[in-house]
């Protein structure tokens, strides 16, 4: 192992340093600027921080693997890939929130600061090579999000969602920690690499303490990726949280948990693959099916997207179960695709939503497409992509996941996955049909477009199309990122 004892190597956490400096600068600026209107410009400090961090992390791509902080964090292509993904998600969330915060007169300073801290927690989670760091990254991200979910204090739903997220989040952290403790007891280390080595050397495979620890870890991660049966918090929290934050959670938290899951399970517990793959196999089927079937019955767009996001976690789990080079590459590619198309869908939701949680029902979307063709077309693209209709990126993502599963011999899983995506076409299509083919019952107030939101829509649209039409570049990047597992 390449641990350089005694070195701290600040460069390794460069992206995080930039994010934290920007977040602290935001806090100070929030105090200094007294004028309410000028404070709306604070978002640009956050965006600048994200852009700076993007530049720093892009420069880390392709470098040699380097450990820092006594082997607690690592820079490899895997971590850089996820860093870039989280920064894109965080940046788009900031831009999406600009008008949202302004309209509802939320205090902008803390909102943007917490978003940056949550992004930073995700980045740390993707980078950690020690269970302690995974836990700390997870908590940095969770504690920031507990606050953000309940940020609209005048909203009954928001406060309730925040309580539920907090109680279940803390509860799941308990499981994760107990799992870590048992793993530490069984192998004598919390370092991922040393855990893997200890299992191989001492022949611990059948050890009950190790198996119990692994089960508890799976439970803890299962909560974070909303795997059935640990999904019950997701619809409530996603519905109650401010819409941009819902979008952020549905892509960011999920991707961060998958990054840690891959590092822990595919990276250092491959010897126990038979056991955890069986659990995830079942989890994946339940997650897809429950997510899609329940989404059919939803009338609230945010709740529908919440169930859709549960279903997508199920598809991604297929890739994790399949494993190997193709499976893991497919997982990374899918997470990237999902981030952009889902954030795009949420950007449309944010654009249409009005103050006091109005215009969030599916019926409110009637006639939106004929009034605002561009917005309707954008939503159609995101919905088709989520449904997996070619040539959009969602189709390519599903295609790679399913073909990896077939290649590794999980035929049953693939069939269930394909059937599930057929079911999902119905509720995604319904949104589009509603927007273009149904006349509204009352005259609708037009949607006001805010420049920041338009930028988000354009970015999401561009990548959703481009990643579907020219997937090879992104697949190459994903393949480069997973070399550490091979």
């Amino acid at each position, binding site marked *: 192992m390449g641990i350089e004892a005694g070195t701290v190597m600040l460069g390794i956490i460069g992206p995080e340093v930039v994010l934290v400096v920007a977040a602290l600068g935001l806090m100070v600026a929030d105090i200094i600027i007294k004028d309410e209107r000028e404070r709306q410009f604070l978002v640009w400090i956050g965006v600048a921080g994200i852009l700076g961090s993007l530049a720093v992390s892009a420069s880390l791509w392709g470098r040699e693997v380097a450990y820092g902080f006594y082997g607690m964090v690592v820079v490899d292509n895997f971590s850089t890939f996820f860093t870039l993904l989280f920064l894109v998600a965080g940046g788009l969330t900031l831009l999406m929130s600009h008008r949202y915060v302004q309209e509802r007169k939320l205090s902008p300073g803390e909102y943007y600061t917490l978003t940056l801290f949550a992004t930073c927690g995700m980045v740390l989670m993707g980078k950690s090579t020690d269970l302690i760091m995974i836990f700390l990254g997870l908590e940095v991200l969770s504690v920031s999000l507990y*606050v953000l979910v309940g940020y609209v204090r005048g909203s009954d*739903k928001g406060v309730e969602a925040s309580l539920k997220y907090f*109680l279940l989040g*803390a509860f799941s952290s308990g499981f994760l920690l107990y799992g870590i403790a048992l793993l530490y007891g069984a192998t004598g280390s919390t370092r991922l690499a040393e855990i893997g080595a200890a299992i191989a050397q001492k022949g611990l495979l059948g050890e009950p303490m190790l198996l119990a620890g692994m089960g508890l870890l799976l439970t803890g991660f299962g909560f974070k990726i909303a795997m059935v049966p640990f999904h019950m918090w997701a619809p409530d929290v996603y519905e109650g949280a401010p819409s941009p934050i819902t979008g952020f959670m549905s892509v960011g938290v999920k991707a961060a948990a998958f990054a840690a899951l891959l590092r822990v399970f595919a990276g250092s517990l491959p010897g126990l693959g038979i056991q955890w793959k069986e659990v995830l196999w079942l989890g994946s089927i339940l997650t897809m099916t429950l997510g899609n079937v329940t989404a059919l019955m939803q009338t609230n767009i945010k709740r529908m997207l919440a169930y859709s996001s549960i279903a997508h976690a199920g598809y991604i789990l297929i890739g994790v179960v399949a494993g190997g080079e193709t499976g893991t590459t497919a997982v990374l590619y899918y997470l990237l695709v999902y981030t952009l198309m889902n954030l795009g869908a949420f950007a449309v939701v944010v654009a249409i939503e009005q103050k006091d949680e109005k215009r969030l029902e599916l019926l409110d979307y009637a006639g939106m497409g004929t009034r605002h063709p561009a917005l309707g077309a954008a939503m159609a693209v995101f919905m088709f992509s989520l449904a997996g209709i070619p040539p959009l990126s969602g189709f390519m993502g599903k295609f790679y996941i399913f073909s990896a599963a077939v290649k590794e011999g999980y035929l049953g899983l693939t069939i269930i996955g394909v059937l599930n995506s057929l079911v999902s076409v119905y509720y995604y299509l319904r949104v589009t049909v509603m927007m273009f083919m149904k006349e509204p019952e009352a005259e609708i107030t037009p949607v006001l477009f805010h420049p920041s939101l338009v930028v988000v829509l354009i970015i999401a649209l561009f990548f959703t199309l481009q990643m579907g039409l020219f997937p090879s570049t992104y697949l190459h990047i994903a393949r480069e990122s997973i070399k550490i597992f091979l």
Partner: protein
Amino acid sequence: MVDTTQYLVLGAILFCLGVAGVFIRRNAIVIFMCIELMLNAVNLTFIAISRSLGSIDGQVFVFFIMTVAAAEAAVGLAIILSLYRRRQTINVDEVNLLKW
């Protein structure tokens, strides 16, 4: 002489008590206390293992857990407080605008 296994068993019992409490109790603050019990059961497990392995990592981990638990408590109690202000209740069964 108390050996490590007994500490581990105690930790497991405390953890299960915490989990059971989360499912049974309906007061948000009591649920939160049960979660804290779970975390402290983990702390005990860590210290026992750390002692028996003769490695310091586990004890360092406990400090991190305590710090994080304190941060969580600050945020969590604030959330419970703001819930009480809006709804005059902290019974989780009455917090049901969103379906569980």
